C-alpha cells in the first residue's frame, strides 16, 4: 500500500511517501497506525499524538475506524490550515 505524509507528519516520519507490505491482520486505518508506530522511532514520533492525525483513503477524508478495503493510497496529515 502506498502511504503519503504531509506537513509535520511528513517531517517527523522523514519521507513524503513510502510503500509498505501490509500484514494480513491489518483491516482498518487504526490497525495501520498501530503497525506504523512499531516500524521505527520516526514513525512512533509522527503518530504519538494520534488524535491530531487526519486520514484520507484514496484522497477522501475518512475516520480511523474505516476499513482499508481495496484502497491504493492512504495519507496521514495534521488538521488542515488552508484558506
Amino acid at each position, binding site marked *: 500500500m502506498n502511504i*503519503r505524509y*504531509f*506537513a*509535520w507528519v511528513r517531517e517527523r516520519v522523514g519521507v513524503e511517501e513510502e510503500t509498505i507490505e501490509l500484514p494480513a491482520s491489518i483491516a482498518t486505518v487504526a490497525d495501520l497506525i498501530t503497525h506504523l508506530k512499531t516500524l521505527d522511532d520516526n514513525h512512533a514520533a509522527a503518530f504519538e499524538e494520534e488524535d491530531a492525525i487526519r486520514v*484520507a483513503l484514496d*484522497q*477522501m*477524508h475518512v475516520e480511523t475506524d474505516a476499513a482499508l478495503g481495496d484502497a491504493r493510497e492512504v*495519507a496521514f*496529515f*495534521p*488538521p*488542515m*490550515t*488552508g*484558506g
Partner: protein
Amino acid sequence: MPVTPLVRVQSEDFDLQAESLRLTQGRRDVGALVTFTGLCRDEAGTLAALELEHYPGMAEAELTRLAEEAVARWPLTGLTVIHRFGKIVPGHNIVLVIAASSHRRAAFEAADFLMDYLKTRAPFWKKEHPAEGGSGAWVEAKTADDKDAARWT
C-alpha cells in the same frame, strides 16, 4: 440543473477582475457577485512568508466536492474557487472564492459556506517563516474554524 463550479489549485497568482468577468460577461441573469480574497498578512511584522503545502490531486478533488455541495444547496449562476500553494509573502493572495447568483443572499451564503468548509476540509497546510529568520512553525488549526464550519450542518 446546478452550474459546474470552476476549481483551480495553482502556484501562480490569480486576477480578481478577470475571474469576476468570467462569471458576469455576456450574461443578463446575474444580480449578485460576492468575492472573497484571502491574503497573507505579516502578523504585525513578525511574518516573512507563508509556505502553503498541499496534497496534489486531493486538494482539487476536495475543493470540487465542496463547490458541488454549494451549487446543489444555493441557486448560483456561477462559482469559482482558486487556492494557491507554495511560498506566499504578506500582501499577496492565497485564496479566491466568487459566488454569482440572481440574488444576494445565495451569493453571500455560498461564499461564506465555502470558506468555512475549505478551511477545515481542503488539504492545505501553512508553515510560517518568521521575519527574524530561523526555521518556521506549522500553523495550528483553530477550534473557531470548526465551529464556523458546524454552522452549516
